């Protein structure tokens, strides 16, 4: 029994953190946000050089062959730096879908290109995670039609993965799709509306259980979104603690006021167990199938709640400065808010967790 990160995992996280420290400063994020840039080329290159897009892709297809827990650590780092690069859709959901449901040929064709960072993939699962303003995706086996909202990682994506209302998964070339970016509060990530009109598509149909496969893809996404929030929340807490130890009022550092100290302590007390929850959910996805779905739902929902709490309190600790654009804390605040709503709101996923336990 060893509930801890391995040395390799710690090293992986440090490596990503190091790269982000160098290449994803707040200035970079701010410039990207201003230019509506959610795939920073040099940052993406840097991440590609250390193999990040291929994290979950097996070595047979040119990837690194790591597990969801490793992907969660990367997401934590990316969230921690509010990094302006695709990851959750393109490097987690899409490769998992192809590994689970693609034919050998499809794996051969697509996965090496994902792994090398040559192409990225948008992911549209809208019909299955709280559909609104959508038009259910249908398919005739060779094309798809309909509209999917809040597709992930679509900017500059070369191909789109779309789930039909019947849980089929299809790949669609970028040129076949009408793509309308949606501008959310979070300018560090790309989401949008995809419209398909008899768009020719490639079904991923090498699975005997399409709905189970799709559910697995969503589980993975939820864990990784939760991890992104964990990282973003940790950065906000760290910034709050640092500020509280520096800023003076009434001739003392504000961190010596209990009102401020207790806000910091509450954030830490809420956030620290979340780390264990995310680790467990990710590990369960990798190795404990009977716990995987339930803990994925809980990780997603609980991190959404704690994330919001931390985002709000950390902002308060900074006083007026916390509310400014100048300090940039809002990038984390907004990322946490988008994460909360993505791939199922907390109420929605808790209801799913209730169903799977036979409580509904």
């Amino acid at each position, binding site marked *: *029994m060893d509930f801890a990160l391995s040395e390799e995992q710690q090293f992986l996280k440090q490596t990503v953190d190091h790269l982000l420290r160098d290449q994803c400063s707040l200035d970079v994020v701010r410039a990207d946000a201003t230019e509506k840039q959610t795939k920073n080329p040099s940052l993406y290159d840097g991440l590609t050089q250390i193999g990040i897009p291929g994290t979950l892709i097996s070595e047979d297809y040119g990837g690194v062959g790591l597990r969801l827990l490793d992907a969660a650590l990367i997401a934590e780092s990316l969230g921690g730096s509010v990094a302006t690069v695709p990851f959750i859709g393109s490097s987690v959901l899409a490769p998992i879908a192809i590994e689970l449901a693609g034919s050998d040929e499809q794996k051969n064709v697509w996965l090496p290109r994902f792994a090398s960072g040559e192409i990225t993939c948008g992911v549209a699962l809208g019909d299955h995670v709280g559909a609104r303003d959508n038009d259910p995706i249908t398919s005739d086996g060779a094309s798809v039609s309909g509209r999917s909202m809040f597709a992930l990682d679509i900017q500059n994506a070369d191909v789109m993965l779309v789930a039909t209302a019947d849980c089929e998964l299809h790949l669609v070339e970028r040129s076949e799709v009408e793509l309308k970016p949606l501008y959310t509060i979070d300018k560090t990530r790309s989401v949008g509306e995809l419209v398909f009109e008899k768009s020719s598509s490639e079904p991923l149909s090498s699975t005997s259980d399409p709905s189970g496969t799709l559910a697995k893809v969503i589980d993975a996404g939820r864990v990784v979104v939760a991890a992104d929030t964990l990282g973003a929340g940790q950065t906000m807490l760290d910034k709050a603690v640092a500020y509280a130890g520096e800023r003076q009022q009434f001739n003392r550092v504000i961190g010596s006021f209990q009102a401020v100290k207790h806000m910091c*302590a509450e954030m830490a007390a809420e956030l620290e*167990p979340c780390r264990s929850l995310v680790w467990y959910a990710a590990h369960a996805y990798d190795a404990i199938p009977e716990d995987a779905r339930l803990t994925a739902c809980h990780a997603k929902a609980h991190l959404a709640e704690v994330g919001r709490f931390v985002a709000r309190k950390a902002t308060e600790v900074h006083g007026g400065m916390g509310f400014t654009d100048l300090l940039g804390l809002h990038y984390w605040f907004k990322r946490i808010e988008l994460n909360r709503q993505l791939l199922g709101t907390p109420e929605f996923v808790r209801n799913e967790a209730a169903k799977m336990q036979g409580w509904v």
Partner: protein
Amino acid sequence: MDLEYSAEYDAFRNELRQFLDEHKHLSPGAVARPPANREEKEDGPNPAQRWQQLLIEHGYAARTIPKEYGGCGEEPDPLKAHIIAEEFAKARVRPGHSGDNRLVPTVLELGTEEQKRWLVPPSIRGEMTWCQGYSEPGSGSDLASLTTRAEVDGDDFVINGQKIWTSGAQHADMMFCLVRTEPDAPKHQGISYLVFTMDTPGIEVRPLVTMTGEATFNEVFFTDARVPKNQIIGKRGEGWFVANNTLKHEREGLGDPHQAENRFREIEELMSNENVDGESIMNNPAHRDRLLQLQGRMLAMKYNGMRVLTSQRKHEEPGLPRWIIKLQGCELNHQMAAMAIDALGELGTLYHRSDHIRAGGMWQQRFMMDLGLIIGGGTAQIQKNMIGERALGLPKEPKVEVKSA
């Protein structure tokens, strides 16, 4: 990350399960009812003591306490301790104890050989029970300001003063107690840690009724109570450091995640079994969502516990994950009790063995008792100070200068 247990631990768990299957009928009821006062104690071991003895014989209680002091003398193995806690909780059987989780480790660490032989064996057999005489009317969170004094007279300390909130003092055999022995020293350096029998002349115990309606704690008055000088643990003036040792052990006991998981199962059963207007409470989406939120918190604390356990196995300092356990665990327990009360609605307010009461009023009791635990053992606010200062490194509050008149 590897949550598999090696063969050794699987075997250990299987043996334990078998033991519990075979013997659980001998375990006393989950809620212990101590005798109303010390005079009423019966002769010979009571069922709880017999149960404890059986557990010690099988290595499921007092595991790491050396054989010469009546324990099992096993190497500390946090994983086995975890398995024991988990399996007892799952089987809903009262676990064993290691005497008193505050006093015994302190004596083993800081007591003399003679003290260890005197205090540890009967404590772990459950024949010598303890109460903690720390808090005073004027010294709660600021414990180091305590004023109950002990003066040396011949071979004895002579104690005068008052303790308060002393849980179980009315039926404990012994007290471990903080007293001021060096009135002229700075406040943290003038304290000593004494142990003595509650039969000592000059000790008067007055029960204090708590909000639950029961007298679980007491006021204890000392009037020239004489305690032999060799009943000090550690040196004179070092009591504060000895006590901190005890507090460390106490904090870890409060907020135990196994207990939270059991409680969660109980609420789930309650919500599935109780009906309002002919419908199961579980069918009410608002209640259900609260239950799910608590499940998320409970799981986070459970896995946090696994993380602490892993650090301990590797002899690493767990840091923040450990600092937060008392605060978060006690809060979670209280919220779970509150949830149960809300699921019961008006039935959740029944008390005093009323008709229609559910689970003997257990949730009503817990709802109140858990608030007591949020306050006792270092209040939630003091926990936050500690997390802020010791785990996050924020500065202490500036000392207020006391102006002399």
